């Protein structure tokens, strides 16, 4: 089934349509830093052209600016037009890839076919850049397999943490069938494609998904537990968090926007799970009684909740112990282990450690910063 063009659309120029569709993706820009970006295998940050194929949508997601019931200009870009824009940005080195999402045109199958057409056209023309496809809930398995041949990364948004919340936010789709099942298939396909590609083949990114934060009352503890579960079950590597921002003329238009710091704190915790070897249950102490995060660095909170573990002796601590110290990240922890022993803070600072943050939690050659409780003990 093809979408039907509205009479107004015929009068919109390519630039105008491009503006509408790129704007349609701005609500899920992670961290609102620059344009959509990803990281290349060599560690470089790369910019992507992020667009919707169309903002026509048959879905009724309660938070979405493109929901079908909303009165908003509807436009589309044809696969050829998207291919043309991508090439022009790519040649000028403004982007190194495409992030393609879409409204649901009739059903998931039809939409994914159109997305696949864009990727296929680009690859057929020799495009070697990065392609990330955000697929529709319910995309059939055969299409996922075909998409895996041309895209570097692809996935379905989970949006919420369980099926009850999901049916409230996205009433047209089924959480277990349309989302979780697809996450499972994506994981299997990634494993399969990585084996096929081996070294020198096109890079296959890991499983990813996105959560909306603050659209409904979901405690941060539950979100993090779900992320942890997805990491174990679906090899999720990097979750994305989208702060809820009320969109006019949607059922949630009168809800409060989610504060930006919440999204940032959730990202910080996701890095603790991804790169620091922590599990969701290790973080139980840092939430408020109602299960929400405070606007403080979660690693500092974790250290404050476990004072008996500190100060850690820099010259003897294991990698896992070093990773618990605020101000020491995975890179500096591994450099510390290679360069030990240390005699002073200056040497440690040269390893990339943030000394101001780490000082209360470390011990170098028996010397450490005192604190009020130690002082009181000595006085008594």
């Amino acid at each position, binding site marked *: 089934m093809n979408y039907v063009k509205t009479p107004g659309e015929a009068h919109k120029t390519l*630039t105008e349509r*491009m*503006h509408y569709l*790129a*704007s349609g*993706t*701005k*609500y899920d*820009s992670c*961290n*609102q*830093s*620059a*344009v*959509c*970006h990803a990281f290349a295998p*060599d*560690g*470089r*940050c*790369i*910019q992507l*052209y*992020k667009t919707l194929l169309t903002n026509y949508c048959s879905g009724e997601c309660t938070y979405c600016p493109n929901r079908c019931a909303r009165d908003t200009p509807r436009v589309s870009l044809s696969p050829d037009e998207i291919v043309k*824009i991508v090439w*022009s*940005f790519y*040649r*000028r*080195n*403004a982007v*190194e890839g495409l992030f393609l999402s879409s409204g649901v045109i009739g059903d998931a199958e039809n939409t994914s076919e159109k997305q696949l057409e864009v990727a296929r056209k680009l690859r057929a023309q*020799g495009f*070697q*850049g990065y392609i990330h496809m955000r697929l529709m809930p319910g995309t059939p398995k055969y299409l996922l397999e075909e998409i895996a041949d041309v895209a570097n990364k692809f996935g379905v948004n989970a949006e919420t943490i369980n099926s009850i919340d999901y049916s409230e936010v996205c009433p047209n789709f089924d959480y277990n069938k349309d989302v979780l099942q697809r996450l499972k298939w994506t994981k299997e396909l990634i494993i399969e494609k990585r084996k096929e590609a081996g070294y020198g083949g096109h890079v296959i990114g890991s499983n990813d998904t996105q959560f909306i934060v603050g659209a409904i009352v979901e405690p941060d503890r539950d979100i993090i537990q779900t992320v942890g579960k997805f990491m174990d079950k679906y090899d999720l590597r990097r979750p994305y968090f989208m*702060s809820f*921002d009320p969109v006019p003329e949607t059922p949630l238009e009168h809800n409060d*926007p989610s504060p*930006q710091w919440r999204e*940032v704190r959730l990202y910080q915790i996701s890095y603790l799970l991804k*790169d620091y070897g922590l599990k969701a249950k290790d973080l139980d102490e840092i939430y408020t009684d109602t299960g929400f995060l405070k606007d403080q660095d979660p690693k500092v909170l974790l250290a404050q909740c476990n004072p008996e573990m500190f100060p850690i002796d820099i010259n003897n601590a294991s990698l896992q112990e070093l990773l618990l110290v605020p101000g020491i*990240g*995975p*890179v500096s*922890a*591994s*450099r510390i282990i*290679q*360069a030990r022993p240390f005699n002073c803070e200056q040497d440690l600072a*040269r*390893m990339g450690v943030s000394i101001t943050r780490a000082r209360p939690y470390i011990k170098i050659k028996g010397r450490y910063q005192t604190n009020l409780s130690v002082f009181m003990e000595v006085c008594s």
Partner: protein
Amino acid sequence: MFLIIGFRTNVEGVLLACLKLRQLPDAHLVYAKDLEELRRKIDFAGVKRDLEHVGFEPVAIAHLAEKAFGKHWYHHVNHSCRKEPDLIHYIDLVLRHAKCEPSELVRNLSSSESVTSLYSGKTQLQRKCYRYMREVRLSYHRLCMFARPSFVRGILTAEIKPEHRVEDMFCRWLAKKNPDLPVAVVHGDKAWIGNGNFIGLDRFMVVTSSFLGDLTTVKKSDDVEDLWDVYYDSQMIDSRRNKKQAKKFQPWSASSASGMSMKDRYKVERGISPCKLGDFFEM
């Protein structure tokens, strides 16, 4: 025996000098681009000592690296998610640094017992070389991110002013990214050509920049730039901007790589101007 080790400033030369210095730790080090320069340097110094020159004949680099650091020399040192370059790339990157003193690099390599210690920064010299390697890599990465080539007489041309000697690296990267087009990277009076076979040249070569004609006459602004502005502006929600993060992604120091990236950085600093005709009517 009191000896001078004369070595060529390339990866082979550095590795051979490192091996020689391990045998003769008291030897003096002199480096040069070629034998001619080496002879000039020695004559100028007027020293009468035994000179052993290394690196001026082609040798297998992998074999040298194995001899210097054992058979696991190529194992990448990974600091968590950050993949460090292997030994050969490490040497290559350090040599490209504007302030690199090749003799220091040789001393660093000869005093390092294992490959991993090169990345640990245990001694001052190791830290210095590691920092040089990171700075060169960053400079290259930033060029890949912020340089915006445009078509000049059918050649995808980028004018750059890198801090370190990374022009050829960037040219090779650009050529790999656009395998169906001839590309050129211009810095000062030199131009590096990639995929030159499309214009009847060698696949990769260095020419004078005048070969590409007068670049100043080329129109800098074009439709793609305007389209990019439309896209860039469409991505911002002012109330949700993370300015700190945005500045990190578009650092001031790298924004001069091109007019387009300078404009993007300006928007990070000052926001997007709402002074358009449409906004005037909407207000």
